[in-house]
């Protein structure tokens, strides 16, 4: 083929090159409990998967990549993010290869590979390193508070004298800036990977304005349907029995609780910020009530997942990687300590309020600053992958009809 009269474009030749990573399987197995070496390629998992659709089949395709050591394929296929782990593939696998747990492991692998400077490796390769990486920012924070806290007033509760509001805001801005840049960098790496998989753009026939319209529409649709309502999660339902289906429904609502609880807390923080910085003229009670309710909702959701992972009575919870625990613990304690701050504040317990405030800030800032590198990263990667896949599919469909 290479001796044809028309020379191949250089870029394509490099794309053709396939790199085999003989350690891929070992790397994946370190992050999950599964036995895909037992796979005999019957395709049962793909055919039973409620989210598998023509053109985006999973999970057997990824199992094949893993067995062949095609690490670039694993990282660059959006199907990693299309799985919500209902577990029906695992319960019906004739080889008990546990494809569901494999998909989770592939997702962990993708998070590592899509992070800039491979920072996420620190949160996935070893427990010790992960704990160290997690404690970096809280320790810095502790140092700052130790050196620059205000007067400790004990006869009344005055948080903002103890820790100046300005300090929190400045720290918050730094964290948000770091977070924003990391998210952008990681999503860019993911975009590049996904583009490599898609190959040459099939959209040449579709006008630029139409393409832009499709991409914008997909963004809005995914934002509403998949981020806010998470409709695919409801489709991801092990329908093998009614009991299984019911479990899937609980899992969906627990996930919604964590998501909306977190969103509510972010909203409460923003309102508070608005009141303090820009003189937003709303009652501070709104942000307080929103914060308390959201915090409780998020804790209930996180507690459900912690309970399931301890009990190990569902396919998704039979195995837990330490990254799963870290994410849940940060979420739960972030919520709990926030709740404590509010409780102590109303109870007028000054010292307890200050201590829990410091702990609360450590947990919640840590949760945010490590977001792009921990399990939390799925909150950015998944919608992004869904957006790209949806838009590309629609563009290529439009290209076919015109």
């Amino acid at each position, binding site marked *: 083929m290479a001796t044809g009269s028309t020379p191949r474009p250089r870029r394509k030749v490099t794309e053709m090159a396939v790199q085999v990573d003989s350690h891929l399987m070992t790397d994946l197995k370190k992050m999950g409990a599964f036995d895909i070496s037992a796979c*005999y*390629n*019957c*395709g*049962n998992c*793909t*055919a*039973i998967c409620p989210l*598998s*659709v*023509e053109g985006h*089949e999973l999970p*057997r*395709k990824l199992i*094949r990549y893993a067995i062949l050591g095609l690490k670039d394929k694993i990282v660059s296929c959006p199907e990693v993010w299309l799985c919500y782990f209902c577990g029906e593939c695992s*319960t*019906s*696998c*004739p*080889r*008990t290869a546990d494809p569901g747990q494999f998909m989770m492991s592939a997702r962990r692998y993708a998070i590592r590979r899509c992070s800039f400077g491979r920072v996420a490796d620190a949160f996935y390769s070893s427990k010790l390193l992960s704990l160290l990486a997690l404690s970096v920012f809280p320790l810095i924070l502790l140092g700052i508070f130790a050196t620059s806290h205000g007067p400790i007033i004990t006869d009344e509760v005055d948080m903002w004298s103890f820790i100046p509001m300005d300090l929190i805001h400045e720290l918050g801005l730094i964290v948000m800036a770091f977070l924003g840049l990391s998210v952008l960098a990681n999503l860019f790496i993911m975009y590049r990977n996904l583009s490599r998989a898609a190959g040459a753009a099939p959209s040449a026939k579709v006008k630029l304005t139409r393409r832009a319209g499709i991409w914008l529409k997909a963004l809005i649709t995914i934002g509403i349907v998949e981020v806010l309502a998470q409709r695919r999660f409801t489709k991801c339902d092990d329908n*093998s029995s009614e009991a299984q289906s019911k479990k899937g429904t609980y899992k969906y609502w627990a996930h919604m609780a964590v998501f909306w609880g977190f969103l509510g807390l972010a909203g409460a923080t923003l309102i508070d910020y608005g009141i303090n910085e820009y003189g937003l003229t709303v009652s501070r009670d709104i942000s307080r009530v929103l914060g308390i309710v959201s915090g409780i909702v998020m804790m209930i959701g996180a507690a459900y997942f912690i309970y399931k992972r301890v009990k190990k009575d569902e396919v998704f919870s039979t195995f837990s990687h330490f990254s799963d625990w870290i994410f849940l613990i940060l979420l739960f304690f972030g919520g709990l300590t926030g709740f404590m701050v509010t409780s102590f504040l109303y109870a007028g317990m000054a010292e307890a309020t200050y201590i829990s405030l410091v702990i609360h800030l450590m947990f919640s800032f840590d949760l945010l600053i490590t977001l792009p590198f921990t399990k939390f990263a799925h909150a950015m990667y998944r919608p992004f992958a869904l957006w790209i896949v949806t838009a590309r599919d629609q563009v290529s469909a439009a290209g076919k009809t015109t």
Partner: protein
Amino acid sequence: MNIEPSIHEFGGSKELPEERHDVMVVGGGICGMQAALDMGDMGFKVLLVEKEPSIGGVMYKLSKTFPTLDCSSCISTPRMASTAHHKNITMLTYSEVKEAIKEGEGNFRVRILEKPRYVDSAACTACSLCEKACPVIVPSEYDGNLSGRKAAFIPFDTALPKVAMIDLDNCIYCGACERACPVGCIDFLQTPKLHTARVRSVILATGFRLFDAKLKPTYHYGEYPNVITSMQMERYLSPTRPTHAIVRPSDGKEPGSIAYVLCVGSRDDTVKNPYCSQVCCMYSIKQAQLLMGALPLADIAIYYIDIRAFGKGFEEFYVQTKAMGVNFVKGKIAKIEQQENGDLTLFYEDIENGGRLSKSSHDLVVLAVGIMPGKDVAGIFKNDELKLDPIGWIKSPDEAGSPMVTSIRGVFAAGTAIGPKDIPDSAVEGSGAAIDAVAYLWTLDRERTGAEKKGGPS
């Protein structure tokens, strides 16, 4: 057939005088008959015990054998006749071995329970008048529930011994059979008989049991009428078939497209059967060929994980079937859904076409059910342990060298009691176990007389 008598405990049974035999063969299928005939021909006294009302096992139900397409009942029926009429073979049908106690080398005391037929077997002439008189119709086990039988019935045309029996579970006690019987052989008061025998060796040819397709709920067997098992298709294709044409159960339509789902209950951890049943690929291919003859316009698709055509002439048979136009699709069927008109939708991943998620529609679906170990045979040995493998097949201490030997000296096993296999291999092992038993008996004789014996039975 699984017709349990209403009284089947030792308590209500009659004890008969003790009999003596050289060997007890447990199981009267193609393998057990082979062992019994070989030993009988060599002059040994054989006791053949069969739990069903007739000997013959499974083979007489089948249409043709693979890969030669020989008529199955034309091979098994003469063999059944030879066995039933052999002067050295004593047959106990509709009987189960309850215990076998080894009291020394070449000395087993066995107790066999003969279930009541509620018909005097010696007097019955198999005239069928009771069958005609009986007003009760129930699904026929022989025809895989595709046709009916009476509560007073002869199991099937070529049954041996050919005697009527009464299925008391479905009997309405109307007495019509009793009035119709010209020899007065109906006896509702019959009780189980307990036979005690002393045998010098035992051959276990207890066979297999078919996988119950209901254990795979995503295939909806027993719920969707047009999902049938391969054994039911064997009946449709057999010369003694229940219907004159191949029709699907729901509406009697002649199917225009038939799908085979392979590995139902085989190579499947979810039903705890990790092994290959060894015959399903080939019998499905055989049925596909026969269907192309019976329904020349029908499309036939076989959905498989791997085609295992390993025996003599098997690969050629597979290639030939492919060339005849059967569509072989690599991909395990994950689930089946029924459409409004009774057609069925099959969901699978089309592995050989880029792993595309696919579904297909068929008029009739045949589940190629696998084979599993029979009922627990180890339990009859009260003093010794009959070793089984984790699945439940009888395990030889020397599988490569002496596959028919078991963990109990003097007890031999053959056929599908050891593991899944096809008809010729089962027959081979029947002969093999017979020769092992003969060697055992002669060795005992030599030890006893202390002399070198030239040959011949004691």
